[in-house]
Each structure stands twice: as structure tokens, then as C-alpha cells.
């Protein structure tokens, strides 16, 4: 059996100041080397679950283990900077900085050992279909799809063990989506990373090894 990189035990969550439990007693496990997708209706709590997994928020009840360690007990800044990469539904890039600056800054925060961070960033963006001219433009001056690809590149820049993506291909054409999905699959299957994708898209779920469904705050294995 593969080792779990992430384990959710009896996780419940409600937003501060709200009465409604968004997630109720969830148990789930994520292994290295697999692609996971999480599906569910809008407002079902998918993004909420991702924010817990990515250490941006803490559970109300239960625990999330990264390997053996409870996320509540680790420095979550370091966890976000080194262990995981997040592709946000709304990108969350520094809009005033250029694409390449966004990636270099992220590498700096993660204390990436890469010597020539700039060259590495150009290269990574190139792989995401962003040429050098585009990479030197401010995020504000990029299209939605381009921004999304910069977001993906940033999430990959520090080679995280876990990659989390919230609707990563929502703004992409079919061709680009295919390329990106191929990268995700390769990361999981060839580099033994754990890839977790929230999506509505059938094309995305088609690459999944495991599919979780969220409904009424409960999680279930669909595939």
C-alpha cells in the first residue's frame, strides 16, 4: 500500500461567524503518485476543503495529517512555502508585477535552491505556453487564460510534494487544457507527486485516479 501524504480524520469546518457546518466529519486519504479530483455542486465546500488542505485555514474539528504530522502543530507558513503548491480559482497573482517576477518572488519565499531563478522561471513559463515577451508583462495585461497558466507555473515553481488546484483549466481552450493536464498526470505518475484538483470539467475528471464527491458537507468516493 502506498503511503498517505495527506490524511483527513473526522474533519468538520464552519466559517467564523457562520452557523452552518460547511464540512461535516470528513474522512479522506491522499497518496503520492496519484491524481485526485474533487467534484460537487457550486457552494458545496470544495474550495473550503482545499483551503484547509493548503494550510490557509484550520479545521474546526478533527485533524489533517501531512504524513504523520498534524497541520495544527506545524508552521503553516513553511508548509505553504515548501510542501504544497496551490493554483487558486482566482489565480491570486501580484497584479502589478510581471509574470516572471511573480514566479521568482515565490521561489525566493520558498527558499528554492535554484541558482538562476529568473532563467528557471522563464523556462517553466515556456512549458506552460507563455513566451518570454508575455512573461515580462504585468499580470494586469495578461488574458485570463494566460494568468491561469502563470498561476500554475507559480504553484510548480518550488517543486512541491502536493499540488492543489481549484478549477485550474476553467479559462483554457481545449488544446492548452490538454497540455496542462498532461503535465499534471506526469507529475503524479512519473515524479510521484500528489495532485488534487477541484473541477466541474469531465475532461479533467477523466485523468483522475480517484474521484471524491462532496455533497451536503459529506465526502464520498465516486471512483
Amino acid at each position, binding site marked *: 500500500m502506498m503511503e498517505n501524504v495527506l490524511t483527513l480524520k473526522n474533519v468538520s469546518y464552519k466559517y467564523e461567524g457562520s452557523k452552518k457546518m460547511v464540512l461535516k466529519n470528513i474522512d479522506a486519504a491522499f497518496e503520492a503518485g496519484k491524481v485526485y479530483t474533487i467534484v460537487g455542486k457550486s457552494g458545496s465546500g470544495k474550495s473550503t476543503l482545499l483551503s484547509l488542505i493548503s494550510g490557509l485555514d484550520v479545521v474546526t474539528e478533527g485533524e489533517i495529517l501531512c504524513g504523520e504530522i498534524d497541520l495544527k502543530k506545524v508552521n503553516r507558513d513553511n*508548509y505553504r512555502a515548501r510542501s504544497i503548491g496551490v493554483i487558486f480559482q482566482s489565480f*491570486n*497573482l501580484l497584479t*502589478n508585477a510581471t509574470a516572471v517576477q511573480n514566479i521568482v518572488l515565490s521561489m525566493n519565499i*520558498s527558499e528554492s535552491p535554484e541558482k538562476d531563478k529568473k532563467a528557471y522561471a522563464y523556462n517553466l513559463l515556456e512549458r506552460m505556453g507563455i513566451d518570454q515577451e508575455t512573461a515580462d508583462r504585468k499580470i494586469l495585461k495578461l488574458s485570463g487564460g494566460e494568468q491561469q497558466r502563470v498561476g500554475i507555473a*507559480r504553484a510548480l515553481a518550488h517543486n512541491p510534494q502536493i499540488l492543489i488546484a481549484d478549477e485550474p483549466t476553467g479559462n483554457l481552450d481545449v488544446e492548452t487544457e490538454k497540455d496542462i493536464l498532461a503535465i499534471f498526470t506526469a507529475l503524479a505518475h512519473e515524479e510521484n507527486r500528489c495532485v488534487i484538483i477541484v473541477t466541474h470539467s469531465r475532461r479533467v475528471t477523466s485523468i483522475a485516479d480517484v474521484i471524491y464527491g462532496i455533497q451536503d458537507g459529506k465526502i464520498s468516493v465516486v471512483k
Partner: protein
Amino acid sequence: MYILKNALQNLVRNSGRNLMMGIIVFVIIISVVTALMINNTAGSVINDYKTRFSSEVTFSPNMQRMQEEARRNSTGGTIRMTPPPAMKPEELLAFGQSEYLQKAIYTAETKGNSDKLKAIDADKGGGGGIMFFRGNASGNTEAESLGQQYFHRVLTNYYEDFENGLRALEEGRFPENINECIISAELLENSGLKVGDTVTVTSVLQELGGESGDMNYTDISWELMIVGVYADITDEYNNDFMQNAYTNRRNEILTTFETIADKMVEGFFGIDITAKYYLKNPDMLDAFTAEVRAKGLSDLYDVFTDAGSYERIVAPVEGLKRISITFVIIVLVFGSIILALLASIAIRERKYEIGVLRAMGMKKMKVVLGLWSETLVITAVCLIFGLGVGMMVAQPVTNVMLKQQIDAAESAQNNNSFSPQGMMTVTSVGMGRVGGGMPGRSDAEPLKELKISLDFITIIEIIAVALFLSSLAGIIATQKIIKYEPIKILMERN
């Protein structure tokens, strides 16, 4: 390191906002630089004058109280003024034992004759007794000295002439112990003596207040060893009027204070003691006065420093200093408020950016450090230019403001002119004398010019102000950022 680099990039990215921040900081710094330079220069001028003019203490009889005293003691309608009680040497020494004094300088002087010393110009006779003046045959006034005749002044105050280069030790050393003395080379030669010889010096003290006319005298004498000899280029005589062996400066015998004071006899005069007291700080005058009163100084004496002249000279500069410090405070208070507002607006604007950085795993303190570096860079740039511009404007601003202060002081003075309290120095009715300087400087002109300069302390203060301004922004940023959770910021945005 990347934090600083990112901060610099941010400065360029948000140039509009930073320019505004910069202008405000710049204005604050110029104002503070100018005002602080004026303030500190004025401060050092004031301190200089304070120590020069108002630290020397003067004891002076209060005429009004003396008259009252005389009236009270008068019998049968005649008012007879008596001099204020003399200050005894013991008292003068006791007054000098005070923690408020930076120093007390005592000098002693008496008259003497010697067995082995052969005075120069001895043929002109001695002096130092009671003087008579009378016209001589050729119509000139001639001074004649009656009573005891002396050929030598015996002094302790020999430092000044040596410091001024009018006298220089030729051989031996200065007197250090009791019963040691030095004399001029001429006197030594005239007497056929050499360094190391001992001479006997005698004098006579007279009883105080012998009203009956039959006064009591007491003889005193010293065995003084000549421990040094000096070359003397002072004028032999201070005037043409009384020239005799006693007034000839070559005949002076210089010894220690203890040597002379040792021979004092209570109730007798003939030895003059002078004390000069210097306060550590003119503000200690009241405390010192209380102390000397407790030690027995008569109410008939006023204790004061020459504060009048000092105030007249320094008043305009003090006005300038007050204005400048008020200005600094106002600028700093208002400037800080504006900057604080600006900083908190800026932070709110950049909330999203902070959320993104935090989501990427940047630690709170590093985010703060980044924002702080930005304001630090802005302030540093403003500091450099502000110092330059401030240095250029400080002098003209000072000139205009000082002129106004002088005009104001002058018109105030015309209405309320300063008159020094009825003053008189007490000379040796008794044996003591206090305070050499008569406060005769009351015609002192106010300072008309103030040369502004930038000293080290001012630079340090300005840097402190700049650091304070930039830290203010930093502190506000820290407060907000510590409260922010990245997920909340990002969700608000979405």
C-alpha cells in the same frame, strides 16, 4: 535580500503613491532639519553665555535692608549706617564646600617685610600703610604713607601672569607646600640669595573696630623657603602715582593660600581673603543661596549671578529657540498624523498583495520588513535631499527670525529697562571679600547674529526623527498585517 529587492521594485511599481508619501516626508524633514539646526545652534550659544555670564556668584549688600537695620538700631534720632557684618574667612571657606559649585577659588594677600630680602627701589620707601596726600613745593600731589611701612606684597594669586606669559619660572618649582615661596629673579639677585634659601617675613595685624584709638596689634611671621625664581616682564609699577618698594611688582612674594591663611587671627585684620564661587549651573543659584544662608550668611547680603546681562544678550536667541522647538513639535505631530493616515490607507490598498504573499508562505515579519524597507528607502532619500535643502534655508530663516526677536526684545526693553540691584562690593572692612567681578556688564548688547551650523548631535536627532517617521508606518503596517489571515483577505477579494 530579496525582500529589499522586492521593496525597491514595489517603489517603482507604485510610484504615484510613493511620490506623495515622499513629498510629505520631504516637507517634514526639511522643516525639522531647519528648526532643529536653529534650535541646537541657539542652544549651544545659550549654554555658552550661561556659563560665561551667570555662573559666577556675587554677594552684595542689600542697601534697603541695611537702612532698615540701621533705623532699627538707631538711638536718639540719629541714624548711623554700619557696614554689613564682615564675612569671616572660615565662612568663605565653608561656603565653598558646596555640591552646587563647580569650583571655588580662594586668594589671600597681605603685606610683609623681610630680613634677608633686599627690596628693589627700597630708596623710594615702603608703603601699604595709611595714605596721606599733600601738595608739595612744586605744586604736585605727593603721597606719603604713614604708620607701618611694608616693602613686599605677599600674594597667592600668581597663576594669571604665568598663564599669560608675563612671568615664567626660571629655576626651581612653584610653591606646593606650606611656607614655600617664589620670587622674581631681580629680587633674588638684589638680595644676593639663591633658590633653597629660607627668609623670614614679618607683618602686623591690627584689631578690628578699636574705637578708642588705642588699637591692639599682633605680630606674625613666616619662615619661607624660596623654592623657585621667575623671570618677570610685567610692568614694575601699575601707575606713576604711587611708586615705592611696596608697589613695585618685582618685590612680590608668591606663596600658597594655606601659608597666608595659617596666620590669620580672629578679630584682627591685615590679611585679605577673596573667594570666587562658580556654580555648576546658574539654575542652582537658589539652592546655593539657601545653603549659604543656612551656613550663616547675613540677610543683609543678596546672593546673585549676573543674570541681567545674560538675559539681555541671550533673550532673542532664546525666543528663537522656543519658536523653533515649538515648530518641530507641531510639524512632527501633524506630520505623524498625516503619515499614519497615509500608511494605513496604503496598507488597506495593499491588503490583497499582502494576502497573496502570505498565501505563498511569506512570514508576517518578512511582509512587515518588506513594507518597512519601502518607507525606509523613501525616508532615506528624503533625508539626503532634506538635509541639503535644510542647510541652505536654515541661515536665511534664522536671520529673519532673529531680527524679529531682537526688535521685539528692544521694544519690550524700552518699557521695562533692567536696573541692577544697588550694588557695592564689600572690601576689607572685615577680612573677607567675595566675588571679584562687579556686574558692570549691564550695557551688554543682545546677540545680533547667529551662525547656524549642522553639528553631529543635530544629524543624529534628524536621523532619529526620520527613523521614527518611517517606523511609524512600519508599526501601523505590522499591527494590521498581524491581524490579517491570508484566506480572509483572498476571500474578501473573490
